[in-house]
């Protein structure tokens, strides 16, 4: 068993075009480090330089937004599905 990770179009350049990849770890942070070993560059698109989850990326464990589960500390286990989606945001600004 592993953790299934669903990759959005814009990040498939790091997964050789794959829409679904598999990884391992006890938390989202572990999982992203694990994935980065196979898919170099992916983690840097999701995690900021100071170690937080990038503001305009949504990461879900099964049906929950990880922001409500402790963000990068959110727990994951084999059999879970992690979905990554780019936030859809913008606006005229000031």
């Amino acid at each position, binding site marked *: 068993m592993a953790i299934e990770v669903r990759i959005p179009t814009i990040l498939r350049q790091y997964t050789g075009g794959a829409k679904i990849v598999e990884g391992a770890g006890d938390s989202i942070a572990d999982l992203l480090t694990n994935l980065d070993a196979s898919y170099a560059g992916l983690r840097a698109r999701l995690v900021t330089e100071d170690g937080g989850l990038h503001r305009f990326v949504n990461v*879900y464990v099964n049906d929950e937004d990880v922001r409500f589960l402790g963000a990068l500390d959110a727990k994951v286990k084999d059999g879970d599905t992690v979905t990554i989606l780019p936030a*859809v945001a*913008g606006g*005229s600004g*000031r």
Partner: protein
Amino acid sequence: MLTIGRDIIDAIVAHARRDHPDEACGVVAGPIGSDTPARHVPMDNAERSSTFYRFDSMEQLRVWREMDDRDEEPVVIYHSHTATEAYPSRTDSSLAGEPKAHYLLVSTRDPSTEEIRSFRIVDGTVTEEPVQIVDASVDPTAVTTYMFGQSPATVDYECSAGH
């Protein structure tokens, strides 16, 4: 070019007017690879702001899964600007995360003018594209008959061919 039905454009503009002075946002889903916007999905602006929008993350997950199940993709991603032109702001271009989508902008700054423009945004680079609005309530065969039978261009062609 973005080709889109009049009924969908009307629904998007109505949504933008309804939410004014907040920015409105949503998607139009269509079959993967078809480049055809078919199913209008108005989304909540989680920011409820006149200068910023963001899809609610849980609603986005639900809608994106639904598209997956139906073999659809977001063909159009739209939002409104309420006081400025329908052109992507720096925020819009830097946050655009769907390189295959048409980014449709509606301005509601003038209540009597329909202001719609469409763009591709790839790696932060904005490229405007024409919008062709198709009115499904007009029989295309009738239009074709009219054009070929009655238009001056066709008549001219026949005259010169005859000589």
